[in-house]
């Protein structure tokens, strides 16, 4: 081999190495901003870092959208993407920002609370990171991220066990990167705890009356457990509205109102022993009535080989999003009837409209 050829080969190897370094460094902790295309109802936009300064400029800061009627009424907060693989929550919150017009009261929406987790694919590896969908403006991609904050953004290895500020312990140390185990958060805590702190500060400063954290669980389908070959029940969380104990009556009335619309949910209350969850800690630490909903996502069934999180026959996204938006609407109605503080929303698609036209018809 000539000297010239050796030099060329060396140069090629160096370039390849640098490229590899670049690619691998970009595969983690990519700077990510959710694709949200605000509609006419959005009156202003802020950031979570407006409520927790240390998040500014990081991969954990996330947009906050305000839909303010200017007329006094209830203030509500909708959280999507606490767990970015729980697609119906992210999509529903995004749909509210892109369609809803508030006529009385104020709606605050964070479509993707965990942008860090959204910046990486679901670590279960069964669903692609970006899912194509036909929207009003053509082809668009819905991101499907991981449950946890990216460890690169957390900036420290997971502890052996996660200890909540209250002393409550969880055996899985990765839960330290679960936003929904970190409430009420901590200003100088881990980046994950700072996100939870930012939400709490937003609730306090914006005087939020009620909040709903949109989640998804596995489906309730029975399955054969590979470990022992036995038939096991699916997720008991599916189709559930979890309420802070002080919000239970409004939650029960909401479930009854949803049944009238043909949507059957179970009502449950926060377990005071399981600390760090939004529905428990928000309601306990503030005047806000806090709720959390769970719809069934086939992508979260461990037994499915190739789940279709968009068009599954039994659990299509349009059905799950339909439930989420009706939960938000019914909560607003019941809260208004109970307290006299109304939140009147227009241009939010109904469950029936979503089943007829599908999700993409209501995304910009």
């Amino acid at each position, binding site marked *: 081999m000539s000297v010239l050829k050796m030099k060329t080969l060396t140069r090629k190897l160096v370039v390849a190495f640098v490229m590899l370094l670049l690619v691998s460094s970009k595969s983690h902790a990519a700077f990510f901003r959710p694709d949200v295309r605000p509609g006419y109802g959005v009156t202003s936009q802020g950031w979570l870092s407006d409520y927790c300064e240390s998040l500014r400029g990081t991969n954990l800061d996330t947009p906050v959208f305000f839909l303010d009627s200017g007329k006094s009424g209830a203030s509500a907060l909708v959280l999507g993407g606490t767990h970015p693989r729980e697609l119906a929550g992210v999509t529903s919150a995004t749909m509210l920002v892109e369609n809803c017009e508030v006529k009385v009261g104020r709606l605050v929406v964070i479509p993707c609370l965990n942008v860090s987790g959204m910046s990486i694919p679901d670590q279960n590896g069964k669903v692609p990171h970006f899912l194509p969908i036909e929207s009003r403006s053509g082809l668009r991609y819905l991101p499907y991220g991981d449950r946890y904050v990216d460890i690169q953004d957390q900036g420290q290895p997971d502890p052996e066990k996660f200890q909540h500020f209250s002393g409550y312990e969880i055996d899985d140390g990765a839960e330290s990167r679960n936003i929904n185990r970190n409430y009420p958060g901590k200003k100088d805590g881990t980046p994950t705890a700072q996100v939870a702190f930012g939400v709490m500060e937003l609730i306090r400063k914006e005087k939020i009356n009620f909040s709903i954290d949109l989640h998804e669980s596995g489906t309730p389908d029975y399955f054969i457990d590979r470990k022992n070959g036995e038939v096991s029940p699916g997720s*008991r969380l599916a189709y559930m509205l979890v*309420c802070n*104990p002080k919000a*239970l*009556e409004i*939650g*029960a*009335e909401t*479930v*009854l109102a949803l*049944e*009238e619309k043909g949507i*059957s949910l*179970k*009502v*449950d*209350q*926060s*377990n*005071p*022993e399981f600390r760090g969850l939004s529905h428990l800690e928000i309601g306990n630490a503030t005047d806000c009535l806090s709720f959390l909903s769970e719809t069934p996502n086939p992508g979260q069934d461990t037994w499915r080989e190739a789940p279709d999180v968009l068009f599954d026959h039994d659990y299509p996204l349009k059905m799950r999003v339909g439930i989420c938006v009706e939960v938000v609407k019914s909560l607003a109605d019941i809260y208004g009837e109970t307290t006299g503080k109304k939140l009147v929303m227009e241009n939010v698609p109904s469950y029936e409209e979503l089943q007829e036209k599908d999700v993409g018809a209501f995304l910009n």
Partner: protein
Amino acid sequence: MYKNKIFRLILSFLFAILFCHAAFAASNIALTSAGQSPDAMMVKVVLKKMDVEVDFDSAMDPAAIKDNHKVLIVVVGGSSKGLGAAGIDQDQEKARIEEILKIANEKGLKILVMHVGGASRRGTLSDLFLDTVVPHADYVIYVKGANEDGYFTKVSEEKKIPVEESETIRALDEHLKKVLGEWGVI
């Protein structure tokens, strides 16, 4: 003129008495949970929609059963979360319910047992409370899904207790109207 003023004052006083009586009139229905699931709250909400006021406490103290009560509604559903929230364990809950049932029987209250959580609210914990409460029932209403193992059918046949199935939680109002109407409390 002076007489007119006195007449108005008396009238206002009478109205105030009437208002206070209406506002503080105790209900003749006591409603509690057996197992601390939120299902008792669901029944309270259904009754509220029917404009039926009840004395509700999911963890009702047995001493809260008073002479004005004519009916006791016990909504069965075991929940470890609910028990935790109430700060009690299943044995303490069972003891509370047994004491309430004892007092209700002594006072001659009609006892309506309800199960509204469907299949997902059956299992060891819920069944422990069902077995405690159902033998005392004058009437049982359950929501579809809870009788997949024939539990309520068996109760109806063996214990000769009238049992009704409701299609949905929303449809409970018709069943409640019928039973509570027959018992003369609504």
